[in-house]
């Protein structure tokens, strides 16, 4: 298992690198969005990076993830192709979804990134179905689904927990609790605003951890994945984190008044990159920045020069 001091240097680098890659890629999306080349609604992951990075670091290639629409982080951390992701945001034919999906619908089957949904809670049951298919086929792969604190208000969350527990399916439910659903606070939506207690009365473990501490995320994910792989059943992981920018779009939004600048600042101070800073040396960070910068330059160049899909009908639409 992975107690803090037990992390290998490679793992530490990987965890930090994956978080930094997401952060920098989204910062570039932010800075170029005004050019109106990327025309799909981006739900930025910035602030959540530790969750995807920490969980994906314990997954195998044959494990599958079902991210929600806030999926950039999961797509990249699970090994999704950055060029194809940017091409998708640019609406290009070589995008990971051929230009049909946009930012909310990323996929990379080779990397085990299953399709994402713009319907809140839409893929929670998909992950259980994937886990059921592993069971039927006698594989030891696991399925992971991520969703927000609002998604647990959808009935399907409870339906799926029940069935997954009943059948001891190899599925891990990752709730990224960032306190808000769009701009409504969890206390205005839930009778008892805590996520992890929902697990226990379906008969599965529910865990609470700091979602901005990538080491804590990694450690809880490792236990849950080991449990699932061993056939002991599902786990619900609640990771407390925070969305830094507006719900959908590239801007800050404290001026809307639903949250204060102080609250945002406080969370930024304990952000995943800040907390994870100890994992790597200054020199390593320099190397990472250089590599990541180059990758992102290439991805944007690729996306820009890629062709648009030419015909709706070529894609199989009938007149």
């Amino acid at each position, binding site marked *: 298992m992975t107690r803090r001091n037990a992390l290998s240097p490679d793992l530490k680098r990987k965890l930090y690198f994956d978080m930094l890659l997401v952060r920098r890629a989204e910062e570039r999306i932010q800075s170029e969005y005004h050019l109106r080349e990327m025309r799909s609604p981006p739900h930025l992951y910035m602030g959540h990076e530790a969750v995807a990075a920490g969980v994906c670091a314990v997954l195998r290639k044959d494990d*599958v993830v*079902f991210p929600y629409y806030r999926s950039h982080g999961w797509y990249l951390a699970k090994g999704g192709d950055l060029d194809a992701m940017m091409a998708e945001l640019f609406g290009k034919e070589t*995008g*990971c*979804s*051929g*230009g*049909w*999906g946009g930012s909310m*619908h990323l*996929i990379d*089957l080779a990397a085990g990134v*299953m*399709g994402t*949904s713009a*319907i809140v809670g*839409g*893929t*929670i*049951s*998909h*992950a*259980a*179905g*994937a886990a*059921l*298919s592993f*069971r*039927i086929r006698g594989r030891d792969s696991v*399925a992971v689904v991520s969703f927000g604190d609002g998604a647990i208000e959808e*009935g*399907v969350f409870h*339906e*799926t927990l*029940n*069935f997954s527990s*009943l059948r001891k399916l190899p599925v891990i439910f990752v709730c990224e609790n960032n306190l808000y659903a769009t701009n409504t606070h969890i206390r205005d939506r839930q009778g008892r605003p805590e996520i992890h207690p929902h697990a226990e009365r379906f008969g599965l473990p529910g865990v609470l951890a700091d979602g901005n501490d990538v080491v804590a995320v990694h450690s809880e994910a490792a236990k849950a994945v080991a449990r699932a792989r061993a056939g002991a059943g599902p786990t619900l992981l609640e990771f407390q984190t925070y969305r830094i920018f507006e719900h959908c779009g590239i801007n800050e939004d404290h001026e809307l008044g639903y949250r204060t600048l102080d609250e945002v600042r406080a969370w930024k101070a304990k952000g995943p990159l800040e907390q994870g800073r100890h994992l790597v040396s200054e020199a390593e960070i320099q190397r990472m920045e250089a590599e990541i910068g180059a990758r992102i330059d290439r991805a944007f160049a690729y996306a820009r020069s890629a062709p648009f899909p030419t015909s709706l009908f070529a*894609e*199989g*639409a*009938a007149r």
Partner: protein
Amino acid sequence: MKFREAVRDATLQALESDPTVFLIGVGIIDPRAVWGTLTGALEKFGPDRVVEGPLSENALTGMCVGAASLGMRPVLIHHRIDFVLLTMDQLVNHAAKWRAMFGRQQHVPMVVRAVVGRGWGNGPQHTQSHHALFSHVPGLKAVVPSNPRDAKGLLIAAIEDNDPVVYIEHRWLHEDEADVPTEYFSTPIGRAAVVRRGGDVTLVAAGPMVSESLKAAQALQNAGISAEVIDLRTLRPLDSDTILTSVAKTGRLVVADSDWAPCGIAGEVIARVAEEAFDALKARPVRITWPDSAVPSSQAIEAQFYPGAREIEMAAVQVCEKQKDDFVKSTIKHFEGPF
């Protein structure tokens, strides 16, 4: 073989021949085995491939989408199609979108097998058809068998299909009997069948209205009207060619559907013919559908609800004016229906 035995035959053969096929649904391990359509399945294939579901239709549907997107072929079974309304988000927003939304890298080979109730005061919530809802949405397919042979062939075809298919099964037909090949075979999706040849009028129907149309055609023959009868079999994609070819010959069209008229399949057939074979039409096309009402429980008024052979026959006669007088002679004697 009875209709319900043909459904069972298809199910067991599919489970036998393809290890990726599994069954899931609420109450499918019930000793009554969904009116005997699953008898023996659990014993033979075990709880991993005959999966009893909690009362969580929405999640079960999403699980089928997830399993199918990883290469399984789930068959989700509902005792009533009314319950499918709990799953429309997964069927329409997810299953139907998965192939297009990801640039055709994904496909969702799942079957939703849903039973339509009728009779014994089942009432407004256990007797709906709703095949029109599924026929509306690109990315879904919908089939409605009218006889035991198609019950087997279309179910196997649905399971083999790489898109989500809604298989609509009318309990009313469960006891119908006919010869059905015992070997594994499939009936192509997307092809209607001309089940009776005729030259004066085309009667189009699906599911339980096919036998009503055939009865009507028989009665029309006595009235000197030769009716061609088309069994749609698949509602989406609709086989326009077979319909248009027939109407090009007959010039007259009556469509019978066990569903409500507005935005229904009967109207769709008429719209296609009007658009694509307008010049061939010699008379107004006619729909025979349910009254615009919920299905009442009381036997006294339920009897007034379901149209049948007589309504089809009368409509056909009306569109074949030339024979109207013969009609009055030939059929008035047994026309005593509610409307």
